């Protein structure tokens, strides 16, 4: 299919797009082309500027400069209305659906080209049924969106675009929330749509999906396009190199170490996610002193709930958390801290820190009780000394304790959070997606620190979606899939293929369940 369109002119083009946000240039003179009937992958790490670029194409962000061309003509595109009129549709990572509306209301809302000012929901529902039959996207028009599973909600989003005759479909991380079966189903639909002449852009950072589905790939890094290639003429390694801009085989030096006694034990731990759906299903794990246990898995398979359940921040429905043999399941998060259990959450900006407060106030989050005098007043000199020490030891820039945490770069913020947790000298650390979105320098600092902590005898539970990170740091690897542990293997005996299979939901043949 790609060959067929190879000589075709681009249907949609972006020329020299520039977009600045406070402190960053999200898009730096970006050029991007999509042809008719092709599936085009836009690849890049978190923060590379790919979502921003697509939101500019969809008229959601204004651009500071640059042109948008449709069929070779420069078009005025300053709002989503303009974009929709030009046949552009976008499905965001977070679905843009009104939860209380029915499917059909969601599909027709915002359509303005019709002259009638009343809405005929029945007629719209009929046309929707027709479309869903035609494209194999089954939905019930009268269902209320909030009661539908995620996969179905995504179908609603696709139908929404088809209903308004979109010729270009942009999907932002469409598979992040899908099961492998749902992903396979989505890919069938996308191929079908491309064969009907639609142009499709998927924004992603998953290499294997790109190889599987796309005709061409554009790679972005730090707000710039660093390459545009035909998928068939490329390979994962090349794409990865272009994406991260460093040798993928970033290696962390780690000496073998005999693990000590079991410290953190999870027994049949189950929990619900924020929506009240079951997200964690009878998880059993043991982390020993002086060991890094990696939990690998595709995002959204219960990782956040696992970390939350250990700290008693998620709603636990069953099972136990043992710390040094003691049942701590129902103890408050503060009690967990006091026992020596530290937690570095995935969401640095909104959970791990407070952007509106300065570094020194963030440095004491979670241990502020230690900085209060007997009469309940904060001991400012002590806080200042501690913040200075933290900044010094972890090389946080700028070196100003009164600098607002919200203005720190991702790497410096992570150094602040990890540093804060490490400096309380915990016995165990639960750390979630520690290097997501960080630059290489910051990644090295974080990795080095984690290994140092392990060598110092700390028990570390490392939850990460990055296999590279897992293989480099973990002594053993557990794979989580749909809230279950599919198996646990020693890193020295594991292969990427084997872990990949388990991440896709296949149980490990030898050991599934509790470790030794």
């Amino acid at each position, binding site marked *: 299919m790609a060959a067929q369109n190879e000589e075709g002119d681009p249907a949609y083009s972006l020329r020299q797009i520039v977009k600045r946000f406070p402190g960053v240039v999200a898009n730096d003179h970006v050029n991007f082309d999509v042809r008719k009937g092709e599936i085009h992958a836009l690849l890049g790490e978190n923060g590379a500027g790919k979502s921003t670029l697509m*939101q500019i194409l*969809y008229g*959601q*962000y*204004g651009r500071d400069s640059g042109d948008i061309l449709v069929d070779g003509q420069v078009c005025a595109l300053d*709002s*989503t*209305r303009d*974009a*929709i009129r030009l046949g552009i549709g*976008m499905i*965001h990572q977070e*679905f*843009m*659906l*009104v*939860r*209380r*509306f029915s499917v059909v*209301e*969601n599909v*027709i*809302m*915002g*359509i*303005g080209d*019709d002259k*009638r*000012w*009343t*809405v005929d929901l029945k007629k719209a529902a009929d046309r929707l049924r027709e479309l869903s039959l035609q494209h194999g996207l089954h939905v019930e028009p009268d269902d209320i969106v909030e009661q539908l599973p995620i996969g179905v909600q995504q179908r609603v989003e696709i139908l*929404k675009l088809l209903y308004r005759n979109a010729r270009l479909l942009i999907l932002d991380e469409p598979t992040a929330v899908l099961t492998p079966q749902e992903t396979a189903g989505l890919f069938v639909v996308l191929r079908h749509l491309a064969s009907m002449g639609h142009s499709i852009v998927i924004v992603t950072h998953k290499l294997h999906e790109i190889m599987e589905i796309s005709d061409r790939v554009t790679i972005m890094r730090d707000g710039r396009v660093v390459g545009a290639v035909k998928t068939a003429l490329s390979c994962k390694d090349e794409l990865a190199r272009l994406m991260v801009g460093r040798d993928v085989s970033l290696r962390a030096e780690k000496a073998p170490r005999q693990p000590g006694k079991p410290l953190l034990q999870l027994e049949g731990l189950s929990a619900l996610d924020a929506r009240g759906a079951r997200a964690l299903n009878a998880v059993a794990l043991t982390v020993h002193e002086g060991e890094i246990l990696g939990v690998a898995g595709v995002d959204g398979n219960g990782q956040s709930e696992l970390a939350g359940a250990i700290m008693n921040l998620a709603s636990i429905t069953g099972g136990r958390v043992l710390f040094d043999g003691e049942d701590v399941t129902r103890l408050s998060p503060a009690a967990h801290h006091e026992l020596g259990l530290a937690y570095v959450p995935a969401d640095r900006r909104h959970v791990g820190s407070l952007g509106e407060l300065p570094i020194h106030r963030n440095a004491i989050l979670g241990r502020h009780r230690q900085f209060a005098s007997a009469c309940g007043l904060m001991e400012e000199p002590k806080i200042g000394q501690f913040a200075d020490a933290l900044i010094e030891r972890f090389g946080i820039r700028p070196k100003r304790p009164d600098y607002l945490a919200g203005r720190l770069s991702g790497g410096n913020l992570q150094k602040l959070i990890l540093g804060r947790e490490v400096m309380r000298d915990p016995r165990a650390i639960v750390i979630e997606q520690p290097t997501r979105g960080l630059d290489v320098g910051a990644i090295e600092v974080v990795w080095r620190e984690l290994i140092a902590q392990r060598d110092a005898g700390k028990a570390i539970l490392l939850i990460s979606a990055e296999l590279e990170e897992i293989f480099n740091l973990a002594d053993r690897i557990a794979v989580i899939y749909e809230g279950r542990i599919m198996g646990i293997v020693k890193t020295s005996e594991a292969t990427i293929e084997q872990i990949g299979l388990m991440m896709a939901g296949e149980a490990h043949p030898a050991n599934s369940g509790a470790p030794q």
Partner: protein
Amino acid sequence: MDQGFTFSVFLVAWLTAAIRLSGPLLLAALGETFSERSGLLNIGIEGTMLLGAITSYLVTLWTGSPWLGLLAAMLIGLLANTFLAWMYVQVQANQVVVGIIFNILALGVASYTYRLSMEGVTGPQKVAMFEPIPIPGLAAIPIVGPILFTHSILLYLTVALVAVAAFVLYRTRFGLQLRAAGENPRAGSAAGIDIVRMRYAGVLISGIAAAAAGAYLVLVQVGLFRETIVAGQGFIALAIVIFGRWDPWKVAIAAFVFGAADALQLSLQLFQVGLPPQLLLSLPYLLTILAMSGILGKTHQPEALMASYRRE
């Protein structure tokens, strides 16, 4: 006379008064429903009602036509709420604070205008009012007739507006877009809805309706203007919208409940019943509190109510 007769007299008096009192409340609450459905809590309707009252009073005084008075009030409501909408939507100032301050401003403006216009005039000047129009035939039905069919044209129009409001909200493209703006503005915007326009529309509708409600107080109920003519009725309309769960039909029922409690309280005082009338008056509020407390489960307010929205 037997007790049955006394009771039916009481019933007719009570319910007629209930409907009469709930008319302006319903009108203001219907408008506020649109504002809140678009995601904005417009507390400024209290002040808007007062502006509507003074405008309708003066214009009717000068022209002798209550219709012109009503029209002028609605125009002023539109203008004043354009400013409010700008503050809410574009400046994104705290909606509660803007509303409260606007109410103080409106009180100042209304009282200043009244004083300026009435200089040299002695004694209160009554203006032409909308007189009750008994509907031929229907008004003669015993009990029900006098309760339902002996009101002014404004009440009949207000009741008709309930159906219009429900139709607009649920059956028109505009209503769908307005509700989307109040539920999930980002999703609405992604679907091509102009959220800013929808929110402006919501506030302007509430402003026109509130100003008309203020005119209603002057042109149907009092015939005079005084600074205390609104006296918190705008806030009661807010409560009615919430009690009516943001739905025009339920808002109509809620308005009647509030009006009935008020009217019953007046009647009971006449009849010297031992019950403290304040208990009765506070009953609708207590019910609203209970409904919103979360004890009875989550209420479905517009999800983005009071959440600001800014396009990047």
